[in-house]
């Protein structure tokens, strides 16, 4: 350890590690994309269950409350160690990470879908039904296409949380961006340089997705202006 502000920076180790970052980013992106795809689908199912009147809706409500309350780290520990031991299965870190991210974010996305669906005027539904459309085709061709437009910006913002949370899968050795960084830190003993670099990489990924959300929002609301 060096004295106060006598630290000599050496950023060359970061440049030397670019192949590791590249490999890590690839895995992080894959984990993120799979989790996004699965939680988009599961979230919609949960939202529909949640909006069903009666005890079924209650199950959806409890699902959202409980699955939203857990942190990703607790999910990962419980699934990767706990569930895997009980079911006698060998989960790989990659799968455990995707399952954890999907369960957590499906609860958040369910609430986003629900808010969007409830924002659609009930008259739309009544009109579609009175024209003779069944309840399924009313939802699929009238309600959902409109609700989807409302939901997309919030959903995309949720993607940024998935990118950030995915860093936690490094703790079970998923080989993602954070994992590679920690490996490089222990190799070069340069924590400041590497953690600053990885912070910048995550930041860039998050900003890109957030910008995408902002653009989509503008585009989707063009017709309202």
């Amino acid at each position, binding site marked *: 350890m060096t004295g106060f502000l*006598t*630290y000599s920076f050496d950023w060359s180790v970061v440049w030397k590690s670019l192949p590791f970052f590249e490999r890590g980013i690839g895995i992080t992106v894959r984990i993120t994309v799979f989790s996004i795809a699965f939680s988009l689908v599961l979230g919609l199912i949960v939202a529909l269950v949640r909006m069903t009147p009666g005890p079924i809706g209650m199950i959806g409500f409890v699902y959202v409350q409980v699955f939203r309350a857990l942190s990703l780290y607790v999910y990962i520990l419980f699934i990767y160690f706990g569930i895997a031991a009980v079911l006698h299965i060998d989960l790989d870190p990659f799968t455990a990470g995707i399952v954890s991210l999907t369960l957590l974010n499906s609860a958040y996305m369910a609430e986003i879908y629900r808010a969007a669906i409830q924002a659609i005027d009930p008259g739309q539904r009544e009109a579609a039904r009175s024209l003779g459309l069944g309840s399924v085709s009313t939802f699929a061709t009238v309600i959902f296409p409109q609700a989807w437009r409302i939901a997309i910006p919030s959903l995309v913002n949720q993607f940024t949380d998935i990118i950030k949370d995915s*860093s936690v899968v490094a703790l079970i050795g998923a080989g993602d961006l954070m994992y590679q960084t920690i490996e490089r830190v222990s190799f070069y003993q340069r924590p400041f340089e590497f953690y600053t670099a990885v912070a910048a990489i995550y930041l860039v990924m998050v900003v890109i997705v957030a910008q995408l959300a902002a653009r989509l929002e503008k585009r989707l609301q063009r017709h309202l202006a």
Partner: protein
Amino acid sequence: MIFLDIQYQFDWSVVTDRWRQFAEGAWVDVWVAVLGFGFACVLGLANAMLRTSGVNLFSIPSFLYVQVMRGVPLYVMILWIYFGIANVLGINFTSFQAMIFALALTGSGYTTEIFRAGLVAIDRGQMEAARSIGLSRARTYGHVILPQAFRIVVPPLGNTFIGLLKGATLMSVIAVPDMVFLANELNVTLFTPFEVFAAVAVILVVLVLFFSAFVYVLERRLRIAT
């Protein structure tokens, strides 16, 4: 049953015999989150004032600060402070301090936006009206602006606290002895992964739902009648 061929021997006594240790571990999560949240509020309020000052010299760095704090994962922040910053400055943080700093910085990105929204949401007419009936600037803030802004910021601040409480469960990565740390230790020594991590999950859900209910009640009580 082919699917549920469970040979796992459940032993819940691992948890029930140590309920005190789990409670103490959970308490560490709560108070570290509370301290992190407190600092996040102070940082956020100061930063929101810079952001709304209308002076570019202050508002632009403040905007960038928010983007950075919200764009960097908490896990990166923790290791960056505990290993990176400590290394550069040549000082040793305790793992508690590092965790509280990390939560404060991450949280301040969110609290800044909440305070900013609260400050800009109060109609300027309120200030003008209060001033024109003779209230001083300080009294206008104290009696007119802040009480209204307070109602706006409390519910989202509560949600930020809940987010930080969930984030606090990461503290075992730098060996702060919280409930997850305890569960990890028990798992390694006794190999009871399901019981110990289920216990942690249940405690976290109960804590989060308790604070969510609290925020919900507060939100209803503070709602401005329309």
